[in-house]
């Protein structure tokens, strides 16, 4: 579990930092990487003080209380509800890594134009308003959507399709719409300054994701193996389906396309990873790769929003399709979460589960849209969200941090 926790942290830094850093223009590389790194620090401190308690502490159906404030009652003996064989602090630190990467993913939508101060404030508040309640509802004991610990609508989300990817992806879309386009978009080109960095980042994400999904079994057992295998299969299938779609449309399969497809597959298999058979994982990956390709290349330009690094197109869209497909493919042969022999997903005959999944998806979309809008408005009215036009043109590295990513003269 500790190794898995370390792997999940590696997904944010350096994984996501490199992935996003490579996709922006040269003048914004450090600012973009700093956004991921800032989350590693800010979310950690908040988690230690209060947000772990809000997410996983005893509370009502929608949010935890203050029982775990300052990590009181979170000791080294196991909490049988969350992990009977690991210390409660192991579970706490593992869950922290999820809370870090989720807001960091949103940064893809407002990259290259948000003030550093506004980003820190907005995302810190976001972990209270969106992440903590959503994590509590899906994974917290007694949460409204919890499938294992007494939820009213049991929504299957093994490792964070709703909690991590829909919340971050949909919030990203709201950010892109609220903040508006980058200066010059879409007329002036803003191609990635280094697909090489993104490539390394994406491969680190793939490896780190084994900690994310297999670790979510909270034990070294068959279920962890199942999640590991499914994660790997879906990712490969999605990379291939995105590449084929691109090959047909553009005549060439690009490196950026292949790695984007892989990330789409990782996202989509996340909720399903501990519930489905390996062949279902291949299918989920193949669907997600082509679907996200369409979202990123077609849907984005139809609507004209500037989701700079496609946080919505990959995480919002992939998370949604993955959460719904989990309802179809979940089987008691892998994870009898509703009791031995009881049907889990539609493939077992429990079509009602698709409805439960849709409920979870709707709640995740709802809380993300409302929470993000309120917070953006709040930060906008107090300290302002965007850098000035001149600062944006000069680049965030110099204007926000007073340094440059690459100094070729020295």
């Amino acid at each position: 579990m500790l190794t898995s926790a370390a792997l999940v942290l590696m997904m944010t830094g350096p994984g996501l930092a490199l992935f996003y850093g490579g996709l922006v223009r040269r003048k914004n590389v450090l600012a973009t990487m700093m956004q991921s790194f800032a989350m590693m620090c800010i979310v950690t401190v908040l988690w230690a003080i209060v947000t772990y308690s809000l997410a996983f502490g005893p509370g009502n159906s929608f949010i935890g209380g203050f029982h775990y404030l300052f990590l009181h009652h979170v000791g080294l003996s196991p909490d049988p509800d969350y992990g009977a064989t690991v210390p409660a602090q192991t579970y706490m630190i593992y869950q922290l890594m999820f809370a870090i990467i989720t807001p960091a993913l949103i940064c893809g939508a407002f990259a290259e134009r948000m003030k550093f101060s506004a980003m820190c404030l907005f995302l810190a508040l976001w972990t209270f308003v969106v992440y903590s309640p959503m994590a509590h509802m899906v994974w917290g004991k007694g949460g409204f959507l919890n499938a294992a610990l007494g939820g009213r609508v049991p929504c299957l989300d093994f490792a964070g399709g709703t909690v991590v990817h829909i919340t971050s992806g949909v919030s990203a879309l709201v950010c892109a719409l609220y903040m508006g386009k980058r200066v010059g978009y879409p007329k002036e080109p803003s191609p990635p300054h280094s697909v090489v960095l993104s490539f390394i980042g994406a491969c680190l994400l793939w490896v780190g994701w084994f900690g994310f999904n297999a670790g979510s079994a909270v034990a070294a057992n068959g279920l962890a193996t199942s999640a590991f295998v499914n994660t790997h299969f879906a990712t490969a299938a999605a990379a291939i389906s995105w590449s084929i779609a691109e090959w047909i449309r553009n005549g060439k399969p690009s490196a950026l396309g292949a790695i984007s497809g892989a990330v789409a597959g990782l996202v989509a298999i996340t909720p399903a990873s501990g519930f489905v058979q390996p062949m279902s994982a291949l299918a989920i990956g193949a669907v997600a790769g082509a679907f996200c390709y369409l979202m990123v290349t077609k849907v984005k330009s139809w609507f004209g929003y500037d989701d700079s690094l496609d946080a919505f197109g990959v995480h919002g869209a992939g998370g949604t399709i993955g959460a719904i497909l989990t309802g179809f493919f979940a089987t008691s042969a892998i994870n009898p979460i509703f009791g031995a022999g009881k049907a889990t997903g539609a493939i077992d005959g429990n079509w009602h589960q698709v409805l439960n999944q849709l409920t979870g998806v709707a709640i995740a979309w709802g809380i993300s849209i409302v929470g993000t809008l309120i917070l953006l408005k709040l930060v906008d009215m107090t300290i302002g969200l965007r850098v000035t036009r001149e600062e944006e043109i000069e680049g965030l590295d110099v204007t926000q941090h007073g340094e440059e990513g690459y100094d070729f003269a020295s």
Partner: protein
Amino acid sequence: MQKIEAVIQPSKLDAVKDALLEVGIEGMTILEARGHGRQKGHTEFYRGREYTVDLLPKIKIELVVRDEMAEKAVQAILSSARTGKIGDGKIFISKIDDAIRIRNDERGPSAL
């Protein structure tokens, strides 16, 4: 005096330099440049967005020579820089009013 400005393929720089030295040209200025004429450029795709990369790397050579040397220099560049393909570049020639050697105020062709 005449100024010869030649925009050439970067891969031809050494050949052009050698050819100019051979006909007796002693000084020149080399600039790394980007540009395009009829060659246009190429297309790149990033997540479905199409980018036309129309400014390609080029080398610009500038030299100022005495009138009688100008045609020799032009011929040297033509023969050494040509690949026969589109994108080989262009040569521009213009008149120069005066030249001054900063070291000692020397003026005119003898300053070259």
